[in-house]
């Protein structure tokens, strides 16, 4: 990018080529949305003149960032749209949006009463009532809550054994592994430990804040971001890099903190890796030695989540999975699944959400894999609900495909 360009988020580099419009999943399915070019760099010119030009329709943006991947001129189109929503959006978030966004306030409560919460959220009268009263679409299968959180399990079953390992990392588990799907966290610990790496948690960890940003709860998001960066800094000071499993949490920490929340992450950003990137680098350099199970056989279809596309790190996942003997990997065409975090749960977005996902669902049906490989938790909900095909995180696939005992023996410290 030319050094003389000083426009915010590079918007003056927009050449009006409209490529972003051709990849926007919302524009193709929702006529109320003006599209990334008009909502982003074009609208910005007007908004800079006067905030009254802010349009409420910007809320239809999924923040999938496909426009940014497609932009030949490096304009941060989705960031411009999110920034405008932060700077000019005047409506207070609805009760529903606060509930959907407060993953780490609702999570502990729902986990504590998990059987009841899961039972209740699965009943059609309850879903009907939620549809009518707060606008969570009744067609949607709601995420299940685990009765034992990952953190609780870790403290009870894994924490004591971690000190024995020579190399240590901090695991940013995120809300999903903690409250909804602790098995992912357990798989993560099993794989890391097999490679001779000890796992520590960061007690200060908060929700990354992505759902709060999407739902207009900016001051709460900034507060969480600052606490997280403080925790990351402490970990890095103590010699532990931070490893994450969620593509969206990672994108939020690396990109949205400085761009949208104005929370500086420069002290830690080179020490944060997504687990697939971390393991790929370790195995490629010879530092980590995998021993694969004999006779493992599966056919998987890889769906690259939008935020992984934006990070540009999908190649780490595919290269890592291609190492598994016996795994046939088909890469799906790059399409948004339509859920976009809390977006697809909202009644007003349900139809658009499913329409956006249709090309992906059709693609999966045509490939007919044993399972879909995907790093993103909300893509998992959407794909499982809409296709019936199970979705596995690459870490869970590794936990199945690795001979964990032999890997542990191969990665024993030599000292």
């Amino acid at each position, binding site marked *: 990018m030319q050094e003389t360009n000083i426009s915010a988020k590079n918007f003056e580099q927009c*050449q009006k080529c409209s*490529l972003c419009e051709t990849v926007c999943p919302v524009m193709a399915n929702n006529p109320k949305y003006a599209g990334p070019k008009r909502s982003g760099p074009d609208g910005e010119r007007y908004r800079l003149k006067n905030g009254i030009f802010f349009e409420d329709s910007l809320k239809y943006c999924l923040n999938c960032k496909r426009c940014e991947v*497609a932009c*030949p001129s490096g304009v941060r189109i989705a960031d411009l749209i999110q920034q405008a929503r932060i700077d000019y959006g005047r409506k207070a978030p609805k009760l529903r949006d606060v509930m959907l966004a407060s993953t780490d306030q609702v999570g502990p409560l729902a986990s504590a009463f998990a059987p009841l919460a899961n039972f209740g959220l699965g009943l059609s009268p309850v879903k009907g009532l939620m549809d009518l009263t707060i606008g969570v679409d009744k067609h949607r299968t709601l995420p299940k809550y685990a009765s034992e959180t990952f953190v609780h399990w870790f403290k009870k079953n894994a924490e004591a054994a971690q000190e024995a390992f020579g190399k240590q990392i901090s695991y940013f588990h995120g809300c999903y592994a903690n409250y909804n799907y602790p098995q992912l966290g357990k798989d993560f610990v099993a794989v890391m430990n097999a490679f001779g790496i000890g796992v520590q948690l960061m007690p200060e960890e908060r929700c990354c804040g992505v759902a709060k940003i999407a739902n207009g709860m900016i001051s709460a998001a900034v507060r969480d971001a600052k606490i997280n960066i403080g925790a990351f800094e402490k970990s890095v000071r103590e010699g532990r890099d931070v490893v994450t499993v969620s593509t969206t949490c990672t994108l939020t920490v690396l990109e949205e903190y400085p761009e949208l929340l104005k929370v500086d992450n420069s002290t830690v950003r080179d020490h944060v890796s997504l687990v697939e990137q971390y393991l790929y680098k370790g195995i*490629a350099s010879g530092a980590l030695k995998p021993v694969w199970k004999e006779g493992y056989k599966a056919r998987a279809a890889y769906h690259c989540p939008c935020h992984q*596309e934006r990070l*540009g*790190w999908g190649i780490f996942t*595919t290269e890592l999975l291609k190492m598994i003997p016996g795994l046939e990997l088909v890469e799906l065409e790059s399409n948004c699944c339509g859920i976009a975090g809390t977006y697809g749960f909202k009644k007003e977005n349900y139809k658009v959400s499913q329409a956006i996902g249709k090309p992906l669902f059709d693609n999966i049906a045509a490939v007919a894999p044993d399972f879909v490989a995907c790093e993103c938790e909300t893509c998992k909900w959407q794909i499982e609900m809409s296709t019936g095909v199970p979705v596995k995180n690459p870490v869970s696939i590794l936990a199945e495909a690795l001979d964990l005992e032999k890997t542990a023996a191969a990665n024993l410290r030599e000292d």
Partner: protein
Amino acid sequence: MKFDVIIIGGGLAGMTAATALQEAGLRCAVVAEGLSLHNAPRRGFSAAGGTLLAGDRVVSGRFDGDRLVAVRTERLGDVELEAVNFVLATGKYFSRGLVADMDRVYEPLFGLDVEYDEDRSKWFDPSFAAPQKFLEFGVKSSDGRAVKDGAVIANLYPAGEVLAGVSSSQGDATEAIIESALAAVKAIRRN
């Protein structure tokens, strides 16, 4: 990461070369900043098993003697992309394959030798509809390979509009772009 061929640029020339090479059994990666031709060519290349790094851009190259050995990208950081051969298909000014300053035209990625007129007044014709000379500018090539400081880079093949003489202002632009891409494919397959 190691590939047989890395194609820098995902436009008409880049995707034409990439798909042909991948289908010929070479392991190819395309680094495409922006998706100028995203649907059909991308599908064909992916279906043939090619690796597409979309939304990423090459930021530097590592040379060893007269060969380009590896490139780094913005997104992959310290993970290098190594290859035996490279295709440079970064286009002209719009896609920043070429940059025009007030006094010179240069190739910003590797600093390759560029053919252009040193007399700036001859770069353009004030008549809008007239053929514009600046559109003919582009990187020099010798036997299909790029040239840097007068020396040929043995495994870097420019293709498409980044090349001198290949221009979208010509009536047969598409043909010239595809021809140059297929010439690079032929040369790489011969080696």
